[in-house]
């Protein structure tokens, strides 16, 4: 399996376009003037003006213009932004854009996703202790994890094992080894998965957010009393 962040392919690196790429042209006077001017204007108390220059100014892009101030211009800009078209929820439903077509309900298709997830979660785990890792897990992504339902109010969900291929606010969609897709509600269920010979438990009830929101949400300690 290739690495998560692989390099650009060779043919792109060697292409003519890439070779023609140059840093933006800077006139000779500017190149001479700027370092001298900046280093000269730094107070003499600081030890090494050259070092500060390389750390803070060299090769950095800085906005020298004043930002927009007039409210009219701002308005214009917001109107422009709004014009970016997104699909409405209804359209999403009608086009079934998030539905996984039936011919794709195959376990092997998602094995690479699982391997990718393993790399990701290993990297996330790193050298942290299981306790700290628990905190990280709250915000982790579970697309590709092999989840098992260990406890549920509904008897027939118990024991379902599969690769999580989609997470919505209230659902995990798992693809099982016998190529079935099972939609398991997060509520009233407890999920487990194995990692480095540890068993991790996800309390579905506490997990009922969209994954994007979950990543930025601040979680509070809440006891799980009942399924």
């Amino acid at each position, binding site marked *: 399996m290739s690495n998560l962040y692989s390099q650009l392919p060779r043919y792109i690196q060697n292409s003519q376009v890439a070779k023609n790429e140059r840093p933006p042209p800077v006139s000779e006077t500017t190149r001479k003037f700027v370092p001298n001017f900046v280093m000269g204007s730094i107070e003499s108390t600081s030890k090494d003006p050259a070092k500060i220059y390389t750390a803070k100014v060299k090769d950095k892009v800085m906005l020298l213009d004043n930002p927009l101030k007039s409210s009219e211009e701002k308005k214009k800009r917001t109107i422009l932004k709004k014009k970016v078209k997104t699909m409405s929820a209804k359209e999403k439903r009608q086009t079934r854009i998030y539905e996984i077509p039936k011919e794709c309900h195959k376990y092997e298709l998602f094995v690479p996703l699982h391997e990718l997830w393993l790399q990701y979660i290993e990297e996330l785990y790193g050298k942290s202790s299981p306790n700290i890792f628990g905190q990280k897990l709250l915000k982790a992504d579970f697309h590709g994890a092999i989840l098992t339902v260990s*406890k549920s109010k509904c*008897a027939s969900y*118990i024991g379902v094992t599969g690769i999580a291929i989609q997470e919505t606010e209230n659902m995990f969609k798992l693809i099982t080894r016998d190529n079935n897709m099972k939609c398991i509600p997060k509520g009233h269920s407890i999920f487990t998965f194995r990692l480095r010979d540890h068993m991790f438990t996800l309390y579905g009830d506490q997990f009922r957010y969209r994954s994007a929101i979950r990543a930025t949400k601040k979680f509070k300690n809440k006891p799980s009393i009942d399924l």
Partner: protein
Amino acid sequence: MSIFISEPVKSKLYISHSSITLKKSRHEQIILDHPFNNNLDIFFPSIINSKKITSLFNNEFFYYKVDLPLSWFIERDFIRDYVKSGCVVALSLTEGIDIANVIALDSLGTLILNLTKDTYEELGLDGKSTKFGPDKQRFVVQIDLKEKSLIPGKKGYERIKWCFNNTLTKKFTFLISFVKSGTKKSSEIDFPSLFNAEKILGKFDFNNTFDNILIPDLNMIKNISNEFQWRLDAVEIYDWIGLASIQAQRIKSHDQVDPFISVYKPPEPYSNGNGSFIKYTGFIPSLTIKELFDSVSNFLREDASNNIPWAIINVWGFKDSPISWNKHEHGYFMNGENNYSFIVYNDGTYILYQALGTYDTYS
């Protein structure tokens, strides 16, 4: 368990009057439908030669105490060799039906799992919530082992097997007895050695005499003339039966207890007499009880001249059993009574008392 009980809880006592000679008589059914019997005693209002008694009522029975995983019950060999060729009864010994999981196999071959909520939510088999106690805190799962579709390869069977091998793998300590349908005697069960099977013989206690007691005249409730009065009398007699079975001092003829402690008097008319008991304790198969019942009634019929006009048979069911009679759900709450008593007369008439605790659906 709720402290806020809206109305006083009632135990139930059903009294019926019938005769063995009648075709519609339910006595056999009552005995056979009550699978989990802990205790049995038979009372005669006279002292009977213990040798004679031993020869008459020596129905040997035995049972096993064994640690079993649940998957053992759904093995094909077990179902073929035992469930379908006789009557296997098993009951798990746990802390109690209010707080722990109770597993039972009744005489009809139904595996009954009375589970706490936590276990049920992990098990993965479909069940119903119990009729008693706080809502949805206990669940009952029933598996009919005699069902035709319960064979390897079928979806339902594989699911049950998977659950017993993966989710509820714990071993339970069971009392288990097997009566072969041919011989109608307790028979051996083969257990793999790792189950710690222990064979227990039923305890017999023949030499139990209880002399100088006040015995009421049970003939006064033999026939019903006034139903209301009969009911009152029958309940009074039941009190006396209870005192007799614990061999209470209050029914001794020379008892002179301070009325501050007890003002009990046996139901009138009573007379002085002696009694003798046969006692059985253990996990008694219903078939054994039925045979004992038959031999008692035969003994009374043949012995008509011998001054034994009647006998009493008391049976106490296990208090923590998940069912009482015939798959009727049973619980504990204040007491888990599921007992019955027969007063058998020498002409075949009998009076049946069935005592049940609050948590029971039998009626």
